[in-house]
């Protein structure tokens, strides 16, 4: 089992519904976020290109945060999902400094927090909150090892990219381009 997510940069309108849904579903403290929207405007006027991406933890296969965690609080759960056990986390901040995507933040309660791919929802067969609410249905989620999952199907059909694969992290958050 290998969970992955694909975000369609051609369908995303940058409404930030995914951000609000995540904050609500996961009780994210006010002023923080586990996912966020990036808009990149690129080119020379009038030939401009815009790309909108809903970003979050990349659940890397070679995760630097898991590697550098001194207590094992950051770990791989089923399906390669990177999770933090709050009761093992000492809040040293090593994982935050080690993430090239800056996907982690210190929770005001002391431990480090991040996207879990809504582990509690997918265990029960539901989609992550961000994917479930997306009004343009641009977030695909599923098991890469299952050729019939929606994420496998869409990645087979469409061209995609990952963010800074040259950082050697083997990210599992894909962007359809």
């Amino acid at each position, binding site marked *: 089992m290998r969970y992955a997510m694909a975000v369609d940069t051609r369908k995303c309108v*940058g409404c*930030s519904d995914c*951000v609000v849904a995540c904050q609500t579903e996961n009780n994210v403290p006010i*002023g*923080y*976020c586990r996912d*966020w*929207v*990036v*808009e*990149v*405007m*690129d*080119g*020379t*006027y009038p030939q401009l290109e815009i790309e909108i991406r809903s*970003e979050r933890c990349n659940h890397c296969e070679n995760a*630097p945060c898991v*590697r*550098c*965690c*001194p*207590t*094992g*609080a950051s770990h791989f759960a089923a399906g390669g999902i990177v999770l933090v056990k*709050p*009761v*093992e*986390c*000492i*809040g*040293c*901040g*090593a994982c*935050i*400094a*080690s*993430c*090239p995507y*800056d996907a*982690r*933040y*210190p929770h005001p*309660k*002391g*431990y*480090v927090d991040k996207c879990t791919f809504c582990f509690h929802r997918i265990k029960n067969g539901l989609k992550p909150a961000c994917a479930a609410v997306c009004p343009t249905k641009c977030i695909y989620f599923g098991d890469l090892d299952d050729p019939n999952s929606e994420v496998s199907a869409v990645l087979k059909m469409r061209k995609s990219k990952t*963010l*800074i694969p*040259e*950082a*050697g992290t083997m990210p599992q958050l894909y962007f359809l381009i």
Partner: protein
Amino acid sequence: MREEIIVSGRMNPMVDPHLQIWHWQIPLYLFLGGLAAGILFFAALYYINGKEKDYRAAVRLAPFLTPLLLVLGLLALFIDLRHKAFFWQLYTNIKLQSPMSWGAWTLLVITPVSFVWCALHMKELFPKWDWKYDWLKTLEAFFNRYKNILAWVMLIYSVILGIYTGILLSAFNARPLWNTSILGPLFLASGLSAGAATIMIISRSKEERRLFAIIDLIIIGIELFLIVHMFMGFLASTQVQIEAARLFLGGPYTMSFWIFVVTIGMILPALLEILELRKYHVPAVVTAVLVLFGSLMLRFIIVYAGQASRWLY
């Protein structure tokens, strides 16, 4: 001209707009740990070489500072933790891939060793010292019998402690400035240099001061070589590391790094040491304080600048 505008909806305090997760505690600890490692290294080295009587400050006196340095450093680390009540989790796990785990276990060995080393030399500081209780005397006799083994443990662990303060940072490939293996040897050299400087302050023997001035001079030479080497490596590397080097070559950290660390902390004390060796009288305190200042600034600037360097995407 190609233009790019990036608008991000991300806003996590301490992470955005740029990372500032580690503040004064970490560089202070790296300095104190490196300094303690330097002092303990020379103490163990000259004890093993049988120079205990010749280099009294190095082997017997300077180590009295190390328990204090290590405890203060540990305190700084503890203050840095955000989930303090769970700090003991460090000692229920051994994570071979995590330099921080290595460091935690190294500190667990070297801190008690530094206390024992001081206890063995109490009479040096207080000639009328008496352990009062018999079991303490037995303990002292026990450690005295195995002092050679203790010195070897101290020698090896002080090197690990000195190198790990650099490797701690170089393990983060997300921060291109830190992501160079030169940082381990550079921080070790800086710690040894600071240790030698401290011994120069404490020593009352001309011969010992002279020896540590020579040692410090050599180490400063090595440090300068490592710094040049580090920048050569950065400039010959990928775009992100070129950008990282630019923080020091025209960027916001240029002045502070080249003035405080390189000029005041390395070149100036090296010149003073050369004068001293040429028989001019230079107070050892001046040289040593400059070295210690440079060593502290190196840690602060590398830790802060490293958090400003990142991958662009």
